């Protein structure tokens, strides 16, 4: 069944979950297919390892399907799936031994052009179009490495807000923290990322 056909059949989200709860294989496949790219991207941005991200995405959907019967519509499906994915990823990150600054130091040899481009973007008063800056592969790598050097909690909140666009309430729900904590953690995460990027240029 194609995604288009699935959307037609299942209509709204509640219908989809109802079918999933009944064990409808097509509905479950649609659920996986519908969310796998978003979840994979989020996990990859948090854990920064493609192979681990793929395994974590698979684990997330295994857990989603195993527990779909206990889903009680207290939050939206995607918040619930994000919660499972983020928990699995953060637990995975805690287990992994990471060498943060060492890897950043090793990657400090970025091309001068990319450095200058990022410097102009960060320091000039005029607000440039970030899509032009982000188009550079080199700058993407620099941002990725800088994200890698944030703490797991800061990286998670930044990814959920600035990449996935989740609301503060949803972030609080996904990370199981207070709304005030989301705000302060987001401020500190952005400041920390700015400091890391400035140290690179």
């Amino acid at each position, binding site marked *: 069944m194609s995604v288009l056909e699935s959307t037609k059949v299942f209509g709204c989200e509640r219908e989809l979950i109802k079918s999933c709860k009944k064990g409808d*294989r097509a509905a*479950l*496949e649609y659920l*996986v*297919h519908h969310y*796998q*790219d978003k*979840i*994979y*991207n989020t996990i*990859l*941005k948090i854990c920064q390892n*493609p192979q681990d991200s*793929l395994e974590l*995405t*698979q684990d997330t*959907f*295994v857990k989603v*399907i*195993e527990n779909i019967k206990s889903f009680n519509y207290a939050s939206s499906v995607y918040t619930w799936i994000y919660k499972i994915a983020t928990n699995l990823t953060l637990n995975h990150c805690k287990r992994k031994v990471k060498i943060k600054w060492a890897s950043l130091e090793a990657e400090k040899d970025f091309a001068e052009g990319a450095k200058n481009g990022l410097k102009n*973007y*960060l320091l000039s*008063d005029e*607000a440039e179009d*970030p*899509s032009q*800056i*982000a188009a550079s592969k080199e700058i*993407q790598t620099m*941002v*990725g490495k800088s*994200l890698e050097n944030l703490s797991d909690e800061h990286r998670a909140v*930044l*990814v959920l*807000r*600035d*990449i996935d666009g989740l*609301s*503060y309430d949803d972030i609080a729900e996904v990370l199981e923290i207070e709304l005030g904590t989301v*705000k*302060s953690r*987001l*401020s500190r995460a*952005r*400041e920390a*990322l*700015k400091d890391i*990027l400035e140290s690179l240029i």
Partner: protein
Amino acid sequence: MINEEIKNLVNCYVDGMLSDRKATEIQRIIDHDAAVSKYYKDMLRIKRLVGCSEKSDCPMNISEVVFTTLERTMIMNNFEANSSDSNGAKHLYIRKLAAAAAIFLLIGGLSLLIFQILSPVDSSDTLPMRRILPIAEDAVIAKPQPVKITLNIWADDLVESTSMFNGLIYSQMLVNNTVPNRELSYSKYSIKCSRQQAISLMAAMETDWNKFVKADAAVGFGDDKNLYNIHSVEPDNVITILAISDRQAQIAKAEKLARLSKPGISESILDVPVEPKITSEAFINNENDKDDSLINLEIIIQQAKRG
């Protein structure tokens, strides 16, 4: 220096998460405060930069992998539910219990063995198998007080009689048991000996008894306050009393002899059946009599009044 609250509000403003009223207030602060303005621009740039980072799609359709994993998990769960694991667990539990019981038995057996090896022989013999006796049987039985017989003998010739009696003491090997006390008018012998020795002595005295003028006996028992005086006593009488092993019968006999010895009373008057005479030989040969109680024999030989 911007305080944390303003920073949080600026970030909320950047994310468009403020109400209109608060957004207007923050916009006014940004317009009038250069530091806040710079902070706002920095946060906005960072947000945009992160937001423009490359999106990565999942490299493959993972649904097949997910369902394969789920099916494998289900098969594994069914296998675990239907497998003999639960039976195995029960079997293992029983085996653990049996092993624990065997260990306890082994420890008990070893303890008993060690106890038997190390404990004193008498304690092992008596402690576990001690027979609970009735109180009367188990109680300490008071040993009967020794019989005390005082013989007062009057002789015509005190020296001869004393000499004769000394010879008997030697011949009966009672020298170590005798405390003699010789005075001018009498000789006193305090003899502490066994029943058997006392009977032998009395039997030996029987031969020369006619040399004495008169003899009286006073028989006393420690646990009986009465003193039984037998007048004109014969060695047979004393032997008869001594030969009786039962204390009550002994007292009864002494009492009877004392009564009979009173002047004017004969055995026929009392109409008492004639008892068989107990001889000293019969007693000495009686091996069943194991009574080893001591006899206090006091013999006083004194000079009879002449004429």
